[in-house]
């Protein structure tokens, strides 16, 4: 189901200690591109949405930053803020899962790896959800699945489109089959949205792997990906180990899947909000579907 180990989020939120180094926020006045090492003043990097002006590398950003970027100012109203997960299996690997989870919750001030809520994008009312890869690799816990399902169902009820930005290593091993079954839960909930004829715009950011891409994330009515995001079911390292196959140069990138008809468009983060608004202009057009409702057989 792909790796779930949390990797450093390259562009952390300001105002909090750096999640990796623990350095206070004030100390970080520059941002160094992890791909080409070009340095930018933090203010510039933030304005550029942590896309490197030198090499166009799209750094990982957190769920709150993502929402800040996509939602119209002050339009986001969080759903299920207190819906937290549980150590259902009393799971212990090298550490008890309960400890890991509590630590992540405290560090990120999030109950789990997904934020969701009502928002407006370019004036269009939507449900908006965003994964946070720094929270246990954005992995698909029962809490994440439940939040996702509720968000989709609320969109069906409210008759708004659902926009979800995924960045997820896949299943959360520590929740075992409960994690696996979130694939089914999320798809079941998306069906409610489809029953209401409301669109699901699935945005894939680096990385989207395993159980996440093999369920809800692959079922967007429109699927948008950020450039050079790693997307796939099985991680490249595992494939290489198991099969000894030589991997193509662009293997499992957004562009690789776009060329193979699996992703509708690859969009630079700096154009992303505009493209989403363009889609919403059609998909959320007033009187649009209302007109065809008369055609029900």
């Amino acid at each position, binding site marked *: 189901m792909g790796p779930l180990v949390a990797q450093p989020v390259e562009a952390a939120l300001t105002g909090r200690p750096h999640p990796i180094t623990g350095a206070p926020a004030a100390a970080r006045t520059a941002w160094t591109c992890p791909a080409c090492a070009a340095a930018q003043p933090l203010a510039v990097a933030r304005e550029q949405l942590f896309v490197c002006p030198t090499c166009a590398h799209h750094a990982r950003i957190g769920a709150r930053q993502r929402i800040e970027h996509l939602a119209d100012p002050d339009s986001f109203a969080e759903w299920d803020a207190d819906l937290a997960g549980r150590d259902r299996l009393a799971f212990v690997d090298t550490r008890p899962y309960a400890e890991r989870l509590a630590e992540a919750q405290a560090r990120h001030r999030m109950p789990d790896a997904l934020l969701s809520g009502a928002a407006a994008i370019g004036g269009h009312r939507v449900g908006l959800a965003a994964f946070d890869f720094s929270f246990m690799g954005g992995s698909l816990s029962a809490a994440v699945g439940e939040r996702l399902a509720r968000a989709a169902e609320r969109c069906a009820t409210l008759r708004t489109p659902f926009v979800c930005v995924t960045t997820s290593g896949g299943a959360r091993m520590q929740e075992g089959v409960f994690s696996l079954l979130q694939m089914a839960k999320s798809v079941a909930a998306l069906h409610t949205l489809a029953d209401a004829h409301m669109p699901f715009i699935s945005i894939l950011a680096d990385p989207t792997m395993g159980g996440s891409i093999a369920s809800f994330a692959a079922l967007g009515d429109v699927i948008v990906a950020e450039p050079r995001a790693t997307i796939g079911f099985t991680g490249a390292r595992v494939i290489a180990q198991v099969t000894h196959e030589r991997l193509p140069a662009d293997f499992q990138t957004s562009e690789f899947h776009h060329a*193979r008809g699996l992703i509708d468009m690859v969009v630079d983060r700096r154009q992303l909000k505009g493209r989403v608004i363009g889609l919403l202009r059609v998909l959320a057009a007033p009187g*649009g579907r209302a*007109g065809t409702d008369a055609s029900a057989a």
Partner: protein
Amino acid sequence: MTAVSAESGDRAASEHAPGGASPLEADAERAWARIELSRHPDRPYALDLIGRCLEDFTELHGDRQGGDDPAVVIGLARLHARPVAVVANQKGRSLEERGRRNFGMAHPEGYRKAQRLLRLAGRLQLPVLSFIDIPGAYPGVAAEERGQAWAIAQTIEAQLTLPTPYVAVVIGEGGSGGALATFLADAVLVMEHAFLTVASPETAAAILYRDAGRKRHAAAALRLEAQNLVGWGIADEVVPEPRGGAHRDWDGAARLLRPRLVHHLERLIAQGVDAARRRERYRRIDGLATPEPDAGG
């Protein structure tokens, strides 16, 4: 448009008449002139008309199964403020683009891309607009290997189960099963110099005369004039083109086409559409000596 009367005269008898100006030869030349107009290198192609008739067009990509055929274009747009899903055959204009788009001839992935668009339209309750311009299904080994015939059959089925209003317009060539894959709409328009045919005139001549060079005679014998499709109850309307043909004035062609698309779409939305009525339309295609009113056992 000059109507060719096929009933007048015994063409077979005059075929071998001395002199080049027999009625048959004149028929053949007239028929061929129309074919050449429909294939004119400056004729507006689907994206040219989509750009001029629709607003907010966003192209989507892929069949969601591993292929994205550039010979078929799909997307979302608005027509007269109304959201629509769009599917089109797309020829290329430059040498490079012609190759990339395979001269507008879909591969199996192209038909599956069309099916994906139809499913999307059904799920989001969007009306469908189809722009047809395909010389014919592609005669190639790979297309056969990947189930071209099955893909066409499945696309025919998908059209006949689409739950939303569906308008098709033949804008150039409407060749064989490849054209039928996106033709089976609730309202079918044909541009003045466009045609629908069971086989390209060249193929038909090779079969009928065992001589592909007699394409002109085949074109005349097949009675490819757009107006005939209306007379036979297969199309609803011929859309006039600017004097001399659409290639002389793309904007003018779009100005003539757009209101007819709007008219039929609004008409269908107002009257209500269901797939069973569409199936009935194609079930009742004429062509029989003694159509019996009761098909029951």
